[in-house]
């Protein structure tokens, strides 16, 4: 796969706490310049992403905001409030953390009820992309979540977050595509660290990749690295384990 094609499948999300404003802006600007699929921000960053979009819009890259990400531990009221806010700011999509506690308790009515309210708040004007937490949940729960999402008219899902032990595997994507690939577009998130694995996931049916390492995997540069000694954040070389 050409690097340019891979980058068009990338989703960047500069809202981690060890960033600074200049790096956030650079990630968004470079994302647009390189035509990433989406740039996802936190609720406090809507103005900056809209400014960048006005200046660098390429007719392809989308703007998005997280809602209840990643644990879904916010109340339904707060998720609805944030959804309405994202809609007011004319963003293209929201990445939603579902009610993980309810799902873990197999209280799927609660999960459905909340997601329905979020969809209503989105009003068809903003695309809702909920998570699945595939690295944590058994397929039985993931299956039920997918069923709920499809019933509610959702068409894309994000496989996990990046804040966890464990990584998304090709087998996760194979299972998801085999069971729901005809109804749900798959955005992979969850510590995908190599181009080889990403390409195998594409073969298995993945469409897009939400990743901090989009530059390195896309062959266009180095990613953001945090130095725990100096507490500096800068673009630098990623070293794989030997």
């Amino acid at each position, binding site marked *: 796969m050409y690097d340019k094609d891979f980058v068009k499948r990338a989703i960047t999300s500069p809202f981690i*706490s060890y960033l600074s404003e200049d790096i956030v802006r650079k990630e968004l600007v470079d994302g647009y310049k390189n035509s990433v699929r989406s740039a996802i921000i936190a*609720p406090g960053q809507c103005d900056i992403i809209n400014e960048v979009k006005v200046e660098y819009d390429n007719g392809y890259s989308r703007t998005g905001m997280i809602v209840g990400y*990643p644990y879904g531990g*916010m*109340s339904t009221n*707060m998720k609805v409030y944030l959804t309405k806010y994202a809609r007011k700011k004319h963003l293209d999509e929201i990445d939603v953390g579902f009610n993980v506690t309810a799902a873990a*308790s197999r209280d799927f009515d609660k999960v459905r009820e909340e997601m329905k309210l979020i969809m209503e708040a989105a009003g068809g004007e903003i695309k809702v992309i909920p998570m699945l937490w595939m690295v*944590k949940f058994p397929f039985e729960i993931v299956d039920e979540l997918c069923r709920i999402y499809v019933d509610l008219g959702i068409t894309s899902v994000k496989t996990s977050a990046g*804040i966890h032990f464990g990584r998304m595997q090709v087998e996760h994507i194979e299972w998801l595509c085999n069971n729901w690939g005809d109804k749900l577009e798959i955005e992979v998130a969850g510590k995908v660290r190599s181009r080889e694995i990403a390409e195998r996931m594409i073969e298995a049916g993945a469409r897009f990749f939400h990743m901090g390492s989009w530059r390195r995997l896309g062959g266009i540069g180095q990613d953001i690295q945090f130095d725990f000694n100096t*507490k500096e954040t800068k673009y630098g070389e990623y070293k794989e384990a030997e």
Partner: protein
Amino acid sequence: MTAKELGRIMGGRILESYYDYAHVSNLVYEALDLGFECIQVFPNMLPKVKEVLNGRDLEVCAVVSYPHGIFLPEQKAFEIKDAIGAGATQIEFAVHNINVRSGNWELVHDEFRACRQAAGSCVLKAILECEWLTDEMICKVCEIAVEEKIDRVCTSIGVYTRPDENKNDMLIGVEPEDVRKVKAAVQGKVKVVAQGNIDSISKCRELLGAGADYISSEYAADILRNWE
């Protein structure tokens, strides 16, 4: 320090994706049985906590703008008021550290002020995330916490990982040095909560030795039951 005394400064927390309603109930019962100072939960767990408590007294801390903290002041204020309405008696918020790391101190002031106002008389705690901050940043944020009358500052979020020498993920935890830095910065005007992967009695002792006023841990019950 006796286990009972430790309990009075110990918070039990369940802030992860694999906890279900039974875990929430269990946390409440452990807290009541062992005398925790508080429990820390997601806002979506508050109805279950209220149901299990059934009128009994327990300080319930809801985490807001968690874990990233990158929210506008009015968004944090909304979530705080919503959580208090659902039964929270304490609030813990993740600080907007992109503002901190960018030196946007007026915005940090605005954030803390909005949270203080929204929280009213509830205990209000700010999560500093020392793991990402230089000593100067820690000092400055603590100064602002003092000025804006935050009740407690917490050292860490406790959910992020970093690679070890083999590139395997390991949890970033609080260290005694973090507690010492924060204690020095607040100069006794704000209480300090040691928080972040506190998984053993020895770790707990080290952090108390470094001056922590409170401890917050997923392993609170184990620590208290085995404390000598």
